[in-house]
């Protein structure tokens, strides 16, 4: 039985594959389109947005949905560090990397989406803030989270890389590491409180949508239900990354950690679903679950995907890897639909107006996802992100020391001894 002991880079596989160049080509094309959008504006040639449907994919999918998926750093981290779930430390680096990539590309997308980005500088002047705006809360907390705690949390693998690959800089990197260790609890505290605040504010955004958001979704508790959904989506995303690593790079799985991830996902989902039904019940809208046609259907699609997957994960069948993968995937799809509904699928603007993204809008949306995927593929090959065993590390060290003479990856002795 494998027990994850440390993170080990993916080795022996070239970084610059044909797929890598293909992705780069696609991203380059997408960035040219992004440049075109900056010149011509957000009109019909670039986006499907209109005055009734003022928000499109870039906000509603890249930010609202994908930062939910990128909440692993916060959701797994809080279990590991605050609730002292020691089993989860081994997957923290995967969680933090996926979070960073989701947030950084999401924020970049936000910059493309807004019409007058040059006025964003007001964000550094607190006396200019409208503190009752949920979007202000998101703008402040999300940029702060992405640029400080999330960045710092992702530095240790990079320090490590420097220590092994650039012996000249070893002293500097080790000093930085020690400094970080001193303030680490304060950093991770920030890394949990900020996402709690802005992931819930993403829900608060649509509270101002009033009656245009269908009653099954519109509730004063939307912020809480939204951040909760982000939490289990974070677990889905981390688990899927680990399963994909098994699939594509034959990385062994630690059954104990996987079972722990599944268990937490299942509990989060049971509680989430119960709370959601309770909220609808208390608001006296429970009949809408059956009588609202399309909206009721959408509600059941979400519930079936999320709750059904959780149920499968909780049974014996859920231990089979292919079933586990499918369950997490379908659960993530359900959760993503939930996060997408209040802004788009369950949002009724006036009259017969309709939103469907334009081709350019979809390409730019996918481009920024591709940037995150590319970043992930490069990072796991250079840095120790994916979990493995000490034996894996020794094997990797033997291989690397042969390929790159002069580097030493084992037999480490701290400098001050």
């Amino acid at each position, binding site marked *: 039985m494998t027990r994850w002991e440390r993170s080990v880079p993916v080795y022996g596989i070239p970084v610059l594959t044909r797929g890598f160049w293909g992705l780069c080509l696609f991203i380059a094309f997408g960035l040219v389109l992004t440049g075109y959008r900056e010149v011509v504006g*957000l009109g019909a040639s670039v986006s499907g947005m209109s005055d009734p449907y003022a928000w499109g994919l870039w906000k509603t999918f890249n930010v609202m949905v994908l930062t939910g998926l990128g909440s692993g750093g916060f959701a797994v981290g809080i279990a590991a560090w605050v609730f002292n779930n020691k089993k989860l430390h081994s997957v923290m680096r995967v969680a933090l990397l996926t979070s960073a990539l989701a947030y950084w590309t999401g924020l970049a997308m936000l910059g493309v989406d807004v019409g007058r980005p040059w006025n964003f500088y007001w964000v550094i002047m607190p006396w200019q803030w409208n503190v009752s705006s949920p979007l202000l809360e998101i703008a402040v907390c999300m940029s702060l989270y992405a640029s400080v705690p999330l960045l710092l949390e992702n530095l240790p693998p990079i320090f490590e890389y420097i220590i092994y690959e650039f012996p000249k800089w070893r002293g500097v990197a080790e000093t930085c590491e020690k400094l970080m260790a001193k303030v680490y609890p304060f950093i991770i505290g920030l890394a949990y409180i900020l996402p709690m605040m802005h992931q819930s504010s993403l829900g608060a955004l649509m509270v*101002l949508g009033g009656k245009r958001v269908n009653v099954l979704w519109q509730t004063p508790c939307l912020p809480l239900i939204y951040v909760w959904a982000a939490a289990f989506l974070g677990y889905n995303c981390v688990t899927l990354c680990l399963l994909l690593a098994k699939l594509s790079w034959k990385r062994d799985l630690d059954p104990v950690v996987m079972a722990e991830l599944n268990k937490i996902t299942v509990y989060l989902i049971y509680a989430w679903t119960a709370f959601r039904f309770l909220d609808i019940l208390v608001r006296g809208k429970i009949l809408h679950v059956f009588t609202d046609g399309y909206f009721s259907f959408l509600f059941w699609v979400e519930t079936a995907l999320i709750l059904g997957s959780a149920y499968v994960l909780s049974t014996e069948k859920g231990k089979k890897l292919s079933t586990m993968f499918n369950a997490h995937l379908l659960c993530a799809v359900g959760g993503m639909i939930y996060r997408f509904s209040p802004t788009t699928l369950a949002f009724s603007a006036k009259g017969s107006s309709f939103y469907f993204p334009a081709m350019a809008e979809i390409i730019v949306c996918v481009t920024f996802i591709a940037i995150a995927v590319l970043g992930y593929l490069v990072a796991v090959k250079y840095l120790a992100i994916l979990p493995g065993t000490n034996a894996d590390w020794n094997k990797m060290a033997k291989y690397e020391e042969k390929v790159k003479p002069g580097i030493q990856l084992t037999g480490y002795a701290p400098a001050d001894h």
Partner: protein
Amino acid sequence: MAMTRREAFKNLAKGTLPILAAGCVSAVLPQVAHAEEEDRLEANPKYHKTDPAKALGLLYDATRCVGCKSCMVACSQYNELTPDTRQDGIHQAPPALNSYTKNIIKLWRSEDGSDHSYFKQQCMHCIDPGCMNACMFGGLQKDEATGVVWWLGSKCVGCRYCEIACPFHIPAFQWDGFNPKIVKCELCRTPMAKDPTKKQPGCTKVCPTNAVIYGTRPELLKEAKKRIADNPGKYYQSKVFGEHDAGGTQVLYLSRVAFDKIGLPDVGDDSIPSGLKYSHMAYKWLALPIALYAGMVYFAGKNFKDHSHHLAEEQKETGLRAQL
């Protein structure tokens, strides 16, 4: 070292916990005493500054409107807007309020064609506007003297949240061009400031039947109620739309047909920002976030120390460098 890290955290906890406890309690308590009106004021402190007796607005009586659309022409002239002739290249015939159109006259007709009513759409100038509450840096402002809601370009990021937050679908975004603006009725505050001979907005100035009139909100409300009293049964539900709707608006409507037929959705009597009052509670003085932060730092610090010990031991055992 005089103090171990564990002790330091303990002291930190001793110092902060009472404050946190007090913070948690006070985050909830003051809300209990709040009257609903006070909540609304708090959601939008700028409202304090507008004297409700001086708040300016319009009264539109759909039963008097003949659909001549002269108000649309006057609006374009006053505000120096390019008329939206994209429909046929000749007539100013926008399909809806848009970035060329701050004011529009539309026609509602029943399905069998037996009944119809014209109706006018422009900003309602809410007492507690959703758009203004949504805006991050104050790109939408409420004039302190008149309560008119206007757009301040230097503060606008172009996020279009105002369009999501307005229940009446009023703010319009310039979708084309690299320097887009939000376009909405500002009750002709700019043309009136530029030219002192203009004493009222373009639409009320030219209306041939006085279907839309200009004045302070109390005056207009009084007039509307007088019309309802003088003509029993004429007006839909004998109600002035905007007296209470969406927390009260400075633009008021009278209609013979149902309000939802003339572009006025049933938005309820609560202002749009009041939906956020529970969220605001959680942020009161930032007490809850700070308490949570301190709590998490305390536990994370404790667990981090244990984990670091564990890592150091493993490093000694295996000769492999510890990983954070």
